[in-house]
């Protein structure tokens, strides 16, 4: 009986000691999401060149090059992005601005600034939301999903934590996202993006991590269509640089004046 009492007390003590310890070790989903955002983006304004290569049934069908200028909004924490089309020649000089939920398109040929809906696409498979810089934590609430070993974009096994994101602002492009991040350093590995109807829209791999803008960041995303997996877009990021992005660049009225150095 004494032994039994001792065992019960020991078990109770162990449990009591263990509960706070487990709570402290429990990863915070929103903090992991924020850390994952910090891997993809920096806090400072920056410029990057984005090359999109589109494939259908294994054949390359389209290529575009964009220059992107991004700066976070101190009020919302979300990025505003000005995109300048560099190639192909027919699109050269066209601009797209995303600020909050506002998308504006400027064509230098007609000097017209036209408002776009989030669903309007200027590129092939990649949505406007895919090519602009986005902090998921500003628009999505994260919950912890399973911790599992998955294969990353380099086909290496990674200990990952799945974050289940649900949109809580109107600015969110997707209804919900499953985002697998590295359990150790919150590097994004893979995401599945879903529509309101819960249909899988796309699967995205974040890969080819390189030291850029002071941290290891993905320099390539591979977008696989949810309905037709043979429709693939490779987005390559090069020429990363911190740069000043004046506030005035990030509004419709400035678009006709925009001409970077």
């Amino acid at each position: 009986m004494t032994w039994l009492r001792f065992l019960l007390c020991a078990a109770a003590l162990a449990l009591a000691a263990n509960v706070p310890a487990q709570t402290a070790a429990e990863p915070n989903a929103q903090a992991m999401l924020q850390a994952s955002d910090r891997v993809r983006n920096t806090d400072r304004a920056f410029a990057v060149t984005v090359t999109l290569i589109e494939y259908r049934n294994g054949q390359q069908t389209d290529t575009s090059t964009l220059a992107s200028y991004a700066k976070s909004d101190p009020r919302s924490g979300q990025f505003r992005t000005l995109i300048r089309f560099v190639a192909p020649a027919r699109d050269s000089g066209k601009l797209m601005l995303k600020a909050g939920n506002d998308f504006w398109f400027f064509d230098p040929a007609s000097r017209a600034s036209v408002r776009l809906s989030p669903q309007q696409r200027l590129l092939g498979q990649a949505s406007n939301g895919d090519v602009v810089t986005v902090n998921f934590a500003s628009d999505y609430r994260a919950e912890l999903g399973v911790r599992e070993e998955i294969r990353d974009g380099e086909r290496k096994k990674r200990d990952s934590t799945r974050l289940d994101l649900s949109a809580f602002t109107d600015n969110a492009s997707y209804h919900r996202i499953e985002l697998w991040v590295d359990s150790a350093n919150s590097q994004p590995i893979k995401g599945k993006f879903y529509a309101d109807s819960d249909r899988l829209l796309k699967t995205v791999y974040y890969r080819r991590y390189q030291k850029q803008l002071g941290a290891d960041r993905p320099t390539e995303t591979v977008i696989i269509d949810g309905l037709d997996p043979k429709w693939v877009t490779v987005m390559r990021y090069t020429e990363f640089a911190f740069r000043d992005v004046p506030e005035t660049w990030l509004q419709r009225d400035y678009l006709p004046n925009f001409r970077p150095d």
Partner: protein
Amino acid sequence: MSKPFLCAVVLACVVPCVVAAEAEDAALDLADVAPQAAPTVASDWRLFTELAAGQTTLRQAGAADTSATTQRLSLDVAFDKKLSPELRAVFADRLDLTHQSDAVGSRTVNTFKEGYFSWQPDARRVLDGGRINARYGAAMGYNPTDFFREGANRSITSLDPQDLRNNRMGTVMLRGQTLWQGGALTAIYAPKVADAPNAGDWNADFGATNNRRRWLVVASHQVADNVNPQVMLYGDERQPVQLGLNLAMLMGDAAVGHFEWSGGRSKTLLAQAAPLAPGVSQDETWHNRLATGFTYTSASKVSLTAEYEYNGAALDQTVWDALRAGAPADYASYRQWLQQRQEITTRHAAFVRATWQDALVNRLDLTLMLRRNLDDQSELTWLEARYRLDHAELALQWQLASGDAFSDYGALAQRRLIQALFRYYF
């Protein structure tokens, strides 16, 4: 639970996962061998040439229609360069060489579209001087606030409003802009440069765009998320000050609504077109002009714009019917005057434009445009199939103007047109 049922459930769960994993592997294999992009530098030049050949059916008053073949060679060039951190130079020009196998014959028209310097002492202030295409308007088919559109199109190669905007001349002006977070104030002064338009082949035609003094003040500010109106004041030595408003707002994830209005005291369009006509009042009264509608985009990349257009200064149905039945000279001068100003002919009109991007096959865009005069029920239909190559585009266009004789579109000289185009970007 029976064994076969259990196996079926397991298979139903496992097989899609395996298939998806294989598809993802295949996609990653593709990405592994994707070509490394060579660094691309944005060019200061934009240059393309366009070759068009077609057949048109021409309306002949009181006689059977005739047909003619048409050919066109165009060269379009644009240059935009920063000469220093503060100074920028912009130039744009277009040359159209056209030939029609009838009395119209061959024509050469050069359009000096833009040529100006822009000085930006800092990111908040801009001063521009020269010939500038200052284009305003949230609507697509009719832009009552696009005050500098009058006389701007020297060579009309297509009735698609997008082409009309791309190919037009700017106005000689001095333009100053100051910007703040979420807003801007723009002031424009356009002087008189010449008395009248000049149709000379290579003439810069300042008389078409700068035949009187005009000014414009535009203010805009983001008053709330999704609300960024543009308010305008326009002065013209030929009429009292006009007001303008532009607003484009999101209507959910897939639609944008637009509202464009201008209003002020003015003579009716008929009074302006025929100032000496007996029985036409020359009084200046308040008139509203409006274009409002929406653009909806489906997940399959079909964009549909529908727009209602109104001009209170244009003819109502009764006066329009009387003009059509009256002296042909009055009718013709009214039509010609309107065409120059890109005004709608009568009070009410509708405009629809649908574009299907990557239709049926990748890189193929299909466009349908429909204009309808709601007072005389005449219509203009325009269809285009355009295939995009890396440096070139191939297009097939078909246009049909239908309606009673002397109706808005029924009276167009070009009743039917079919043409093929080849455009090459350098």
